[in-house]
């Protein structure tokens, strides 16, 4: 008995195992799906083992007696044992009967009786109510091309019918409810095209028989499989382009910076100027002791560089000027005077200071003349020329002695004779051109005479070396380091342009006080 029990248990276990493994799609899932899809009241289907099962839905669980009768080819009717089951997925109770033997390609008649009365009556053919399992081993992979996916699967296990199956592939972007469907006959692979790049897709597949020899319902969908499409080449290209451009710009800027690093360093991190180079050894040898350093150096450096600025007793400079034979009247003389004077002073530099280089502007002339006129006593305290030297110019024909205490740089005569000619006193008559002393100039009448009269009268006539008839203008260097711009021909021309202006000025303000303003000065020899 024990052996029998052991063997019996084994058999039962094996049967249960067999029942479970031969399921494929379970009875309940099939029933629940057909409850939705099949419109007939009496629903029948043939499973993968080619057994036909018919079932019907019961709303209320009552103790009704159902009788199931069937017949093939109008032959003898046979009964079928009716069972019931509760389908959890649909929350319904069904009665069903599985035929012991199923014949295909022949007419089948089924009848259901409840309590002796016909409930359902249906005539069908078994080869038209197949219910296939879904496809197996669904695989989705990237095809290596942009926007494509390779889908492949295996057909359900159904003998003799592998080549008559139609498949339906459904795919959608993950998270989207909009899906597309593609049908495929016989073959178990499919390439999805025109997909979005770099997107995750969901793919399902289902199958049904082609309906030529056998017909079936659509199988249930497989479990979804996810796959990603390749990222767009364009996106990759754009990223690569941006990176390469950035790299090139970086290298360019690096090259520029390196080639001009000294310049940039100077601009961004300028050297703090130090005066060390001007003071040799001050900081290195004398440790910053300036007195010590000065004593050691004996002020040699300072002496050289500042001798110009020290107060030196002004040395009188006599400038011989000569009225230029060029065509201009008296008025521009005043403008030209400082020019010539400067030029002369530069030419005879032995005793002259090098400070003079350029007569001032016409405005400055006016101001100086105005100042002198207003305050003639302050000529001696004039800020411009501190020279207190006076000079006496003797005129051969005149007893007047002009005293000039001040000289103006604007009172210049063009000088053509060398300086030593100044000292030739033979019959030398010099006219004091006290142009710097406007206020003290006597009236023009006979006050001064220019030896260059002839030049006035005859502009084209060059100044003849007639003799020692020169007009003097003494210029004293007061040590003022005024930096005048060098007189150039253009400036001379400008001064000439101001001829009218100056002339007016003189006539208005100085009138006759200016001996040379509008008079011919006659020189006497």
């Amino acid at each position, binding site marked *: 008995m024990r052996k029998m029990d052991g063997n019996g248990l084994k058999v039962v276990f094996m049967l249960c195992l067999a029942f479970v493994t031969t399921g494929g799609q379970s009875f309940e899932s099939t029933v629940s799906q057909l409850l939705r899809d099949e419109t007939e009241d009496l629903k029948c289907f043939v499973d993968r083992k080619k057994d036909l099962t018919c079932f019907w839905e019961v709303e209320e669980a009552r103790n009704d007696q159902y009788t199931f009768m069937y017949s093939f*080819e109008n032959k003898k009717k046979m009964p079928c044992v009716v069972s019931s089951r509760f389908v959890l997925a649909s929350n319904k109770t069904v009665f069903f009967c599985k035929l012991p*033997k199923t014949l295909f*390609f022949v007419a089948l008649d089924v009848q259901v009786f409840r309590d002796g009365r016909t409930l359902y009556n249906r005539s069908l053919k078994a*080869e038209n109510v197949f219910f296939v399992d879904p496809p197996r081993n669904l695989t989705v992979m990237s095809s290596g091309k942009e926007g494509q996916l390779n889908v492949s699967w295996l057909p359900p296990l159904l003998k003799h019918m592998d080549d008559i199956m139609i498949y339906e592939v459904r795919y959608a972007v993950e998270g989207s409810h909009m899906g597309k469907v593609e049908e495929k006959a*016989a073959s178990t692979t499919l390439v999805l095209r025109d997909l979005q790049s770099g997107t995750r897709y969901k793919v399902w597949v289902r199958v049904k028989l082609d309906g030529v020899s056998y017909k079936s319902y659509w199988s249930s969908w497989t479990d979804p499989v996810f796959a990603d499409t390749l990222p767009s080449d364009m996106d990759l290209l754009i990223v690569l382009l941006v990176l390469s451009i950035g790299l090139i710009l970086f290298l360019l800027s690096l090259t520029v910076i390196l080639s001009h690093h000294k310049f940039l360093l100077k601009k961004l991190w300028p050297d703090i100027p130090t005066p060390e180079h001007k003071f040799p050894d001050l900081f290195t040898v004398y440790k910053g002791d300036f007195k010590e350093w000065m004593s050691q150096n004996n002020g040699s450096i300072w002496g050289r560089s500042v001798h110009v600025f020290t107060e030196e007793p002004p040395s009188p400079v006599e400038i011989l000027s000569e009225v230029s034979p060029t065509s201009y009247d008296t008025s521009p003389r005043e403008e030209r005077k400082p020019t010539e004077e400067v030029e002369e002073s530069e030419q005879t530099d032995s005793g002259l200071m090098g400070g003079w280089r350029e007569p001032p502007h016409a405005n400055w002339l006016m101001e100086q003349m105005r100042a002198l006129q207003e305050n003639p006593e302050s000529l001696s305290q004039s800020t411009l020329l501190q020279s207190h030297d006076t000079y006496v110019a003797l005129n051969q024909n005149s007893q007047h002695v002009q005293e000039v205490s001040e000289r103006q740089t604007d009172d210049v005569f063009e000088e053509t004779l060398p300086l030593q000619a100044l000292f030739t006193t033979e019959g030398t008559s010099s006219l004091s051109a006290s142009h710097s002393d406007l206020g003290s100039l006597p009236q023009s009448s006979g006050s001064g005479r220019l030896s260059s009269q002839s030049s006035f009268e005859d502009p084209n006539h060059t100044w003849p070396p007639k003799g020692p008839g020169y007009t003097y203008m003494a210029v004293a260097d007061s040590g003022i380091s005024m930096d005048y711009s060098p007189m150039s021909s253009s400036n001379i021309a400008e001064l000439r342009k101001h001829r009218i202006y100056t002339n007016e000025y003189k006539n208005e303000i100085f009138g006759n006080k200016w001996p040379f303003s509008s008079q011919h000065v006659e020189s006497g020899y």
Partner: protein
Amino acid sequence: MKSYFVPQSRVDFAVWENIDVQGQAMEVQTGRSLLALSTAKKTVSNSSLASTLDNNISNIHILGQILHSLDLQQARSTVLPDDSAPASSQMQEVSSPPELLQVQSSFLRGKVRLLLSAAPACQRQNS
């Protein structure tokens, strides 16, 4: 009343799978012959139906050629195509042309297809 002797179209997979290829071929051939004889009887008055039956005759002959090319045609049929009573379980009798065509359709879809799909020459190459 005229009757047509037509093949049995029923297929019991449990039985069919136990029959060897030659046995299957014989069944198919016998049935084809019966159909050929039945459709040859020009007893219909309806012209459209007559033309359909004429097409069937040509199709049945084509089927014979296919079977011959597959070396499935038997040299001789064991069933005598005459008016004698159906002695084989492979025959059935129908009384009208529509029934004849319906049986023919079932026969072709069933047994003929099963036989041809099992033939090596007709096997799809599995990729």
